[in-house]
């Protein structure tokens, strides 16, 4: 005889605004699993939770800030990174995490993304890439694969997408990884590494959006997309991000691509001030 079990508590409840549950995400969406990885990564990284600030922009992933029980900011579309830049420079002791979607971070906010990577500001950016604008009903964007269908590319997308790890690595990020939400353990470990890594860390998380992206691209259930990740993914740590381009149904190269050391924005700022003091210019 099966016994009915009611779960009153979850080990990660203390990180969640449980009074806001149920969340708004669709069944089969990958943002929830990715948020779970983030929360477990905080525990794994053993950092002071009171010093973590989560900043999100607009869109489905933009809602992450509202569900985590941390100092959290739900800002405007595309502007999570510059808001986070002010937070970090206002108090360098904060551990600042930007958690947002591909449309938010890469399309409307693309300029801020490359400039913050260039500065190597100490910040972790988690980018859920579901290849489309989910919140507004499935439009194409800067990450939509060539030929993919969307409500604004009804005959197929005729634009090339960004290869995010390549873009961000070229811009100067010191930690760059890509995982799918199928790779929960790798993703959790990767986020934990990024949280304690000084400098600009960027993690792309390939994530299903069955309701609007999958449905338009012959992957109508979350499981269909997950299965396709299983079939198409290949782990290549240390791969050249240039070779990690994504397509509609080709290989998904995942792994940790970049993990290098370079002085952060704050390090450089302090070095310059120190030199000026020695030269009695400051």
């Amino acid at each position, binding site marked *: 005889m099966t016994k009915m079990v009611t779960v009153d508590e979850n080990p990660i409840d203390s990180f969640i605004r449980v009074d806001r549950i149920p969340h708004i995400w669709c069944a089969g969406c990958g943002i929830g699993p990715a948020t779970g990885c983030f929360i477990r990564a905080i525990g794994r990284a053993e950092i002071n939770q009171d010093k973590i600030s989560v900043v999100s922009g607009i869109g489905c992933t933009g809602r992450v800030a509202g569900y985590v029980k941390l100092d*959290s*900011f739900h800002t405007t579309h595309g502007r999570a990174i510059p808001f986070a*830049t002010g937070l*970090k*420079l206002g108090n360098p002791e904060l551990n600042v995490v930007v958690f947002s979607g591909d449309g938010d971070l890469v399309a409307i906010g693309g300029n801020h993304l490359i400039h913050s990577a260039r500065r190597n500001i100490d910040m972790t950016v988690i980018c859920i890439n579901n290849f489309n604008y989910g919140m507004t009903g499935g439009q194409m964007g800067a990450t939509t694969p060539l030929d993919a269908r969307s409500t604004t590319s009804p005959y197929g997308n005729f634009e090339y997408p960004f290869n995010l790890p390549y873009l961000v690595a070229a811009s100067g990020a010191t930690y760059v990884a890509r995982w799918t939400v199928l790779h929960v353990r790798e993703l959790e470990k990767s986020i934990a590494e990024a949280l304690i890594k000084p400098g600009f860390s960027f993690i792309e998380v390939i994530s299903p959006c069955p309701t609007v992206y999958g449905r338009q691209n012959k992957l109508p259930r979350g499981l269909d997309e997950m299965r396709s990740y299983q079939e198409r993914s290949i782990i290549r740590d240390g791969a050249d991000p240039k070779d990690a381009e994504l397509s509609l149904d080709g290989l998904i190269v995942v792994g940790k691509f970049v993990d290098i050391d370079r002085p952060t924005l704050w390090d450089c700022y302090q070095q310059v001030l120190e030199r000026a003091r020695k030269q009695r210019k400051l």
Partner: protein
Amino acid sequence: MPQENILCGEFFMNGDTACAEGAISAGCRFFAGYPITPATEVAERMAERLPQLGGVFIQMEDEIASMNAILGASWAGVKAMTATSGPGFSLMMENLGLGVMLETPCVVVNVQRAGPSTGLPTFVAQGDMMQARWGAHGHYEIVALVPDSPQEMFDLTIVAFNLSEKYRIPVLLMADEAVGHMSEKVVIPRVTPEDLVDRPRPKVAPEEYLPYDSKKGLVPPMAIAGEGYRFHVTGLTHDDRGYPSMTAEAQDKLVRRLVDKIRLNAKDIIRYEEADVEDAEVIVVSYGISARIARYAAQQARDEGMRVGFLRLITVWPFADERIKELASKVKAFVVPEINYGQIVREVERCAAGKARARLVPHMGGGVHLPETILEAIREEVR
């Protein structure tokens, strides 16, 4: 903090520099900006001065980023400012609205130049006065101060910070190219902590803290990041907990409070100065650089025997409704010189409500009025 680096004494400096020094005296320790004529000197001064005071200057990739960065810094507990001109001011509008919605203290300086678009980058105008009032979407109230001299660039920057902290709002300093670039004597007093206002801070334990506790009055206490309050704030319509609340009721409650905290405190916020209004039959109403010429024209009219008064708006938003209404019942006309084709004159006209005429003396920008132009308008209205 190396306080000895804060200036004190008499200086000969331009308005932009005085603005930067005012910010420093006000306790501003974060500046994010993007170069733009004629406001660049504010950024240049801050880039030099903030590192001397343990503060941070950062040049962002654009004005959108600059506006967001000062909001972020303010939530980290630092007094923050940006400075720009028309094109950059346009780019800042969406996130000025975010500042209003999150109730974030900060100061935004607009050293106005002539537009629309790129316009006359190096020449004066006052064409952004209505943009200052209504530039971001949605219904809100804003506070805008208008300096008429380098001295006021200093003084009003401090007032701007104090108002921003007191009411948890972005405050606009609506300067202009002439005031920003002219050099005059600026007296910098020793500013003491008693002269400065800090945002209301929570006194309750984190588990009892509500970021937008409307029971705490119109201006709820503000936690800052990293102190353990674990708060959430959002640009969405939200409830007292800071949680999104997608209802007309939540919208009603929130927008009323955001507007009322300024409307109901208008007396505390509104500043103006007057001369010779008691017996006046015509009053010249002006602001910023235009007011300096208008004052001269009004004096000339007095010398010619006309009963002319002068009113300079120092706070333009919220508008000095009550005072203009009072004066409207005593005078024949208001003469309103401004460097645009009619913006603040509409406010004067609204308050005059048909009791007195409101006569615009426009200038399209690129220069300032000739006193004779204003004097001629005064003569016609007195007649």
